[in-house]
């Protein structure tokens, strides 16, 4: 059933061959073809702009008040590309291999290789748009290293890389809006896919200002709606990030790929209390310059700076000498949890470890600056002062953010950090062309499952979002639409639109009519707690079974007792949130099902039943080298389809970062 449509031929020729042979749509016909793009993050904005440039008639949707606010804006650290500007041995092959290995051999080789190939074009494109990446004094682009790799291939703009990339894509999009090729719909939320004769032919969207439902036709529909980490309630995602768009598609028949693959990021600001509404990331790039440690003594009451060097346990450097503080995220997160669970955590909650910049402030940056300025025998204070200036330029905004949130100055005292939900590798199952199993329905960016396997390496989501939008979809959509040029726009009075809109309206009415006594937020928090405890950093069969039962119970309570204030036909953020939380609840159950099925540890998915004697993750390639693609079969029922993963080039080994 599942056809991934991977082209034949050698790995490094597949994309070249595909582009050489895919069907094209001539310019006159493009103008007759309408494409709906839901989402204006890196994936959606780049796709909408590029398709507009090609001449398609595009409609772009986002729920925020402007396309520029999509959550891609918050990405901090950087974007990978195999430019090898540093002459340190990087290549397309190496980026491909690192990504496959980083994903713990649960991604498709062909997709990942294509990603590495187009990575170089992305940087060229962004620079041409005026994206102000960091530069060296000679005027050329600078790079930094990022977790899980040994080369410097990450392009960045201080700690605001996502912002700068998104502004680039947003500007390209606004240019197309000005030219009339793209029509943009802000403060609109897509609430269902409209299917005609088995193909995706439009959407039902709600204008969030008036509360009215709208029908929109498209020859094809692209879902670029981001990740669903907020199923855990607390995550580094924006408050509005949701699963609704892809969940509706899933319920219309689109398979959900690897739903349980969640990335827990090791370096986030810890939770302070029940009032916490979200968690804030401190970019992984900080691990280049910060050293992670906990006291050697349990429950050490001293302040961090009072603990002498020899009484600190730099546990990552100790356990993983080859990669040290730069081990991949999943490894770093579990190691932090292990130390805290064992009683070595720091801070008031004891659920935190230190990320300390002092050593590198002095030894790396301070000394280099002193040398540059010809200062001989500088004292520590001078070194710290000089080092601070460099660190400020690299991460100033992150340090400021940390201080605003915690009230502590990270130049003086080590940061306190703890892992938090950050990214979802899972998403709608798509083939090589980024099409779901529903003809004409595509998923791009974090919304699809495609390129990161069981664990995403840092700086590769921005790369994937832009690869999908700028360089992949413009080709692959033509291959589909070339056969559709004779299809006239379907009037939105068609019964499929009528019925879908009716179902959407009924659901909204039902939510509003419950009039119970418990707020949406309360249910969301309860769901998050179940997910974090039982489908979080470590999972086991018993916990997952309990979680499924608890979520089913939660769903019942939600649908009989939720309280939503206000009315439908007005701006009503609580109603918007209720719809999203209802979808998260259903998704949570599927995630637990998927985690239960996958009785192996791989990447971000750590099954306690499957570990080595040293407590490291143990993958099971004989039984689980597949993508789980779940088909919706009605309430609490799914059928599992397996896409076998075959590796022609990569050699499957247990990852070792020792």
């Amino acid at each position, binding site marked *: 059933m599942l056809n991934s449509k991977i082209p034949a031929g050698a790995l490094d020729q597949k994309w070249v061959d595909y582009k050489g042979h895919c069907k094209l749509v001539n310019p006159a016909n493009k103008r007759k073809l309408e494409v709906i793009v839901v989402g204006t993050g890196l994936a959606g904005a780049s796709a909408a702009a590029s398709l507009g440039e090609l001449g398609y008639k595009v409609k772009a949707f986002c729920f925020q008040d402007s396309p520029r606010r999509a959550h891609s804006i*918050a990405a901090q650290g950087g974007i990978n590309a195999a430019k090898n500007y540093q002459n340190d041995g990087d290549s397309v092959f190496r980026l491909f291999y690192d990504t496959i290995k980083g994903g713990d051999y649960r991604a498709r080789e062909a997709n990942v290789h294509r990603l590495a190939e187009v990575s170089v074009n992305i940087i*060229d494109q962004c620079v*041409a748009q005026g994206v102000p990446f960091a530069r060296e004094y000679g005027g050329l682009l600078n790079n930094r290293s990022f977790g899980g790799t040994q080369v410097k291939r990450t392009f960045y703009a201080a700690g605001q890389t996502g912002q700068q990339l998104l502004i680039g894509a947003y500007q390209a999009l*606004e240019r197309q809006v000005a030219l009339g090729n793209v029509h943009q719909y802000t403060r609109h939320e897509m609430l269902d896919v409209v299917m005609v004769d088995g193909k995706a032919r439009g959407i039902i969207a709600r204008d969030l200002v008036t509360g009215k439902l709208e029908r929109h036709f498209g020859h094809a529909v692209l879902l670029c709606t981001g990740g669903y980490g907020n199923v855990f309630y607390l995550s580094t995602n*924006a408050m509005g990030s949701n699963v609704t768009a892809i969940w509706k598609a899933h319920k219309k028949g689109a398979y959900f790929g690897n739903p349980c693959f969640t990335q827990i990021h090791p370096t986030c600001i810890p939770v302070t209390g029940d009032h916490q*509404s979200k968690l804030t990331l401190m970019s992984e790039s900080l691990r280049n310059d910060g050293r992670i440690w906990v006291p050697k003594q349990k429950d050490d009451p001293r302040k961090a700076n009072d603990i002498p060097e020899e009484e600190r346990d730099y546990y990552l450097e100790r356990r993983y000498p080859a990669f040290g503080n730069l081990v991949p995220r999943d490894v770093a997160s579990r190691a932090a949890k292990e130390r805290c669970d064992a009683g070595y955590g720091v801070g008031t909650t004891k659920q935190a470890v230190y990320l300390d910049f002092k050593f590198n402030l002095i030894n790396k940056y301070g000394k280099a600056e002193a040398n540059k300025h010809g200062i001989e025998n500088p004292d520590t204070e001078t070194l710290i002062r000089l080092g601070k200036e460099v660190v400020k330029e690299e991460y100033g905004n992150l340090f400021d953010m940390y201080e*605003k*949130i915690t009230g502590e100055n990270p130049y003086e005292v080590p940061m306190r950090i703890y892992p938090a939900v950050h990214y979802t590798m899972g998403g709608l199952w798509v083939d090589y062309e980024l099409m779901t199993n529903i003809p004409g329905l595509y998923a791009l960016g974090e919304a699809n499952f495609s390129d990161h396997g069981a664990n995403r390496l840092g700086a590769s989501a921005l790369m994937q979002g832009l690869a999908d939008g700028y360089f992949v979809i413009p080709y692959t959509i033509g291959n589909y639409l070339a056969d559709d040029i004779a299809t006239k726009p379907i009037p939105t009075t068609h019964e499929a639109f009528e019925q879908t809109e009716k179902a959407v309206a009924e659901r909204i009415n039902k939510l509003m009519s419950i009039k119970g006594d418990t707020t949406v937020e309360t249910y969301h928090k309860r769901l998050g707690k179940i997910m974090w405890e039982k489908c979080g950093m470590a999972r086991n069969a018993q916990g997952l079974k309990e979680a499924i039962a608890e979520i089913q119970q939660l769903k019942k309570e939600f649908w009989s007792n939720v309280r939503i204030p206000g009315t439908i036909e007005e701006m009503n953020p609580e109603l918007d949130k209720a719809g999203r939380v209802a979808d998260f609840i259903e998704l949570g159950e599927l995630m637990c099902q998927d985690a239960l099925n996958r009785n192996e540890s791989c990447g971000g998915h750590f099954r306690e039943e499957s570990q080595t004697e040293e407590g490291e993750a143990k993958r099971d390639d004989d039984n689980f080298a597949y993508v789980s693609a779940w088909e919706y079969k009605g309430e609490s029922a799914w059928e599992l389809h397996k896409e076998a993963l075959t590796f022609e080039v990569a050699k499957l080994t247990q990852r070792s970062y020792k």
Partner: protein
Amino acid sequence: MEHYLMNLTLKVWRQANSNAKGKFETFKVKDISSEMSFLEMIDVLNEQMIREGHDPIAFDHDCREGICGMCSMYIDGRPHGPWHANTVCQLHMRAYKDGDTIVIEPWRANAFPVIKDLMVDRSAFDRIIQAGGYVSVNTGSPVDANATPIQKDNADAAFAAAACIGCGACVAACKNSSAMLFVSAKVSHLALLPQGNPERKSRVTNMIAQMDKEGFGSCTNTGACEAVCPKEIKMSNIARLNNEYLVAGLTIDK
């Protein structure tokens, strides 16, 4: 940091929609932790209001990390509240003490009509960008990224201008509701880079024309915008914009 609890009085602007008349309403909140963010404090109030059967306060927010530019509250006469170089989502309650009264209003400007309570419509900013805030380059195969070296100082200055989050605090702070700081940030970002050069003149001319059309006021150099900008966009960008505009006016070629 020492953590403490506080009780507060909030005077909040309520307005059902853009046509309705608004008014202030007063609320009490109890046991607010100094570790909460300002928006988490509003969350507490809203939860309380929903439980008591009232309509919660509508406000814009999304990232809660100071980067998306969505949050927008005018607090005690200052956009984004009392802290320097800050967005309201990053304002934390340790800025306040027990017994304080806080007045919260939406951005006020003709070009930013109120949608509901503290939410305003800032789509005028998108239309200003549509007028020319971009480099006209299609997706394809531009030259290699390192083919054009850019002097680090210029690149850094372009980045500093590009850091604008489009929040509109500058407009809200200005007695004329001028959008000059926002427009100058974009004009400067692109004027400082070789990529932006070919369209320098038309860009500044068209963006200014659109800004006027949207009903933003003129700039009288009071500096209120710079003082509240969460991203520390400098007034020197306005000087650069004026210069660009002058040159474009003298030599406009299209």
